[in-house]
């Protein structure tokens, strides 16, 4: 144990004092905070001004299009050919072409130079839609007031009902948060697993490994390396969380507090208005946009973070043992490719299944793959977002999944160490899968 501790210490210290570790640790939160603020900033930055030339084959039906502060409509009796001709030389940002049969086709064209924002397009769409509606109302001799009476804005509210009688709205957003957690596990298993593999290859190619294993057992060396890298990963997480929080708080106060104080209000109002209009066809995404603040409060973060800790740790431990075995079987990193399939296949499968699990977290695929140790670290994270116990995932499923992951880890480490022990001292010739299988079966003392 004492020697394993020495190995862990060395693996840890040589990695955390490396320049790349320090740079990545510092850069990570800056990138992350930058990304988050950039997304927020882009979301707010909707005050683009559109000057649109309207070409109307039903001239002058659409003359009534109203200009607003954001969108200015210029109405003229041009043909579309002529409009296209002059478009690029003009200062119009877009050309709106309304064909003659619009009342039947329900389609118009918007030619742009620079991609307008989603909000702008929705805005224009709503304005045109309103006129088309009027057109149809007139055509079918329907009174607008009557139409408003029957125009239904239907919405089905799915509500989770717990045994205690509390009600909670069902959210796919929650699953999306779970998906992000799962994705992080996927990413970090690769990131740190590859570090273990590189470490093993380094020891092999620098030929120090035989000196080391004359002092410690190969198993101690492998576990020392795996645990050392795990601690590096946990250190990096901790620093990332701390630094991201600091940077995020800082960035939010700076950008939102000062520069965009006024605009936030107006853009939120605008989005709310758009949301109202968008409801029938795209309710969820609009709600997501607005209720972003809300979702964070609905996620059980202590549960998610502790589960993330568990599934990351054991998922990583399980896979890194496999990475270590692969590292021991090859002479250089360029030879790794042929042995990566058994590692990448379950990981990618887990990733794909977690995409489906977002839609249906209690479906059979999500269930089975969240129990199976090779895929559970990723798939279970997606499912966990809806909560454990009442209305969420049954507790026994989580417990089974966790227990199986630990068992899976023990078995994988045991198998991997068999390959590792023999692979370490093999130079020159790359073993085949068949040969590695023989190493596994042959119980060498």
């Amino acid at each position, binding site marked *: 144990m004492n*020697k394993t501790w*020495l*190995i862990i210490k*060395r693996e840890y210290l*040589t990695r955390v004092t490396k320049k790349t570790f320090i740079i990545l640790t510092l850069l990570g939160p800056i990138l992350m905070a930058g990304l988050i603020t950039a997304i927020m900033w882009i979301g707010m930055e909707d005050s683009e001004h559109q000057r649109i030339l309207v070409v109307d084959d039903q001239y002058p039906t659409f003359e009534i299009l109203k200009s607003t502060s954001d969108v200015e409509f210029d109405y003229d009796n041009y043909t579309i050919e002529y409009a296209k001709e002059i478009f690029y030389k003009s200062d119009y940002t877009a050309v709106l072409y309304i064909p003659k049969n619009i009342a039947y086709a329900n389609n118009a064209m918007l030619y742009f130079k620079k991609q307008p924002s989603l909000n702008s397009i929705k805005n224009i769409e709503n304005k045109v839609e309103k006129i088309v509606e009027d057109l149809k109302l007139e055509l079918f001799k329907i009174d607008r007031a009557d139409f408003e009476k029957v125009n239904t804005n239907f919405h089905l509210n799915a509500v989770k009902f717990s045994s205690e009688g509390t009600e909670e709205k069902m959210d796919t957003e929650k699953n999306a948060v779970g998906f992000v957690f799962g994705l992080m596990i996927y990413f970090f298993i690769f990131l740190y697993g590859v570090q273990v593999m590189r470490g093993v290859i*380094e*020891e092999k190619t*620098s*030929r*120090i490994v*035989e*000196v*080391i*294993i*004359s*002092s*410690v*057992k190969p198993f101690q060396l492998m576990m020392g390396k795996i645990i050392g890298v795990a601690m590096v990963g946990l250190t990096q997480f901790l620093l990332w969380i701390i630094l991201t929080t600091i940077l995020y708080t800082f960035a939010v106060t700076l950008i939102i507090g000062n520069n965009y104080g006024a605009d936030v209000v107006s853009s939120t109002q605008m989005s709310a208005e758009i949301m109202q209009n968008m409801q029938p066809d795209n309710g969820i995404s609009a709600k997501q946009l607005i209720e972003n603040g809300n979702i964070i409060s609905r996620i059980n973060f202590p549960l998610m973070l502790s589960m993330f800790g568990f599934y990351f740790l054991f998922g990583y431990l399980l896979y890194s043992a496999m990475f270590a075995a692969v590292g021991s079987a090859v002479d250089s990193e360029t030879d790794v490719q042929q042995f990566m399939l058994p590692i990448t296949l379950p990981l990618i499968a887990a990733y794909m299944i977690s995409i489906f699990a977002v839609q249906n977290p209690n479906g059979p695929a999500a269930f089975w793959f969240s129990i199976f140790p090779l895929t559970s670290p990723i798939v279970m994270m997606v499912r966990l977002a809806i909560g454990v116990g009442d209305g969420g995932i049954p507790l026994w499923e989580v417990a089974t999944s966790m227990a199986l992951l630990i068992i899976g880890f023990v078995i994988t480490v045991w198998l991997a160490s068999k390959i590792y022990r023999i692979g370490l*001292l093999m*130079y020159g010739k790359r073993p085949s899968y068949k040969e590695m299988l*023989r190493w596994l079966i042959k119980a*060498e*003392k």
Partner: protein
Amino acid sequence: MILQINQVSKIFSGHQALTDVSFDIEKGKIFGLLGPNGAGKTTLIRIINKILEPESGSVYFNGKAITNHAVRSIGYLPEERGLYKKMKVGEQLLYLAQLKGVEKSEALVRIKNWLTKLDLLDWSKSKVEDLSKGMQQKIQFISTVLHDPELIILDEPFSGFDPINTNLIKNEIKALQEKGTTIIFSTHNMESVEEICDDIVLINRSKKILEGSVEEIKNSFKENLFHLKFKGDLIGFTNALWTDFELMAKKNNGNLHEVKVKSTNGKSLNVLLEHTIKEVEILHAQEILPSMNEIFINQVSKENLQDE
């Protein structure tokens, strides 16, 4: 006996690496473990270090079956050796010493002593990759002896060493022997064997084919050949040989002669001198013993011929 190898056999997926190999190593000796490439030397060494387990047979260290704990008293310099390139010299030596169970404070003192002795103290804070190859080899040697082992196993220690380092390390090996350390020296470089080994074992194709002290072995393979230098008449010299000796080769420069003579019936150098000293002026006389290199080549090729 510090080490006893008892009928050790090892098989690697159908390939017999060692077949019933037995020998003993006396404490305080420099022991040569000889054999051509692929004979099984490294496998045997790995078994002694408990990196591998034998299929059958046993290894005794100081009279007891060898344990992982006992392996701590062994210093091992493998043939495939290296260091962590990105680690600093001092840190690396400390790490390797601690893995062998040396206390940190004690290890630091020894590291400083050894680095001073081998003129590397200024480099202790440098990364290994910044050192020359010769310096790295010295560091590897230091790492082998830092924990003050009772038994040191050197697998092809001089492969890749320049002559200056070779000499330096040879002197260190001898100094360690004087302190009572036993050294196993695995090589196919016969010159160094003759120079420093007391006893040897020769392994070929997984089997032990020869063992004993260097002196004994050389004597047992002698062909009763003598080398003489003399001044005088060659015909008179040849006549004086009688039927006891036979002239094998000759070389002359004026009346200065150099000859190789073989005893036909086991007569000694003294008899040869008695016969000839009246005829010519003897300048130099010596029995020709076979070199370890010749014995090695003869024995190995003889074995291989028999097998085929």
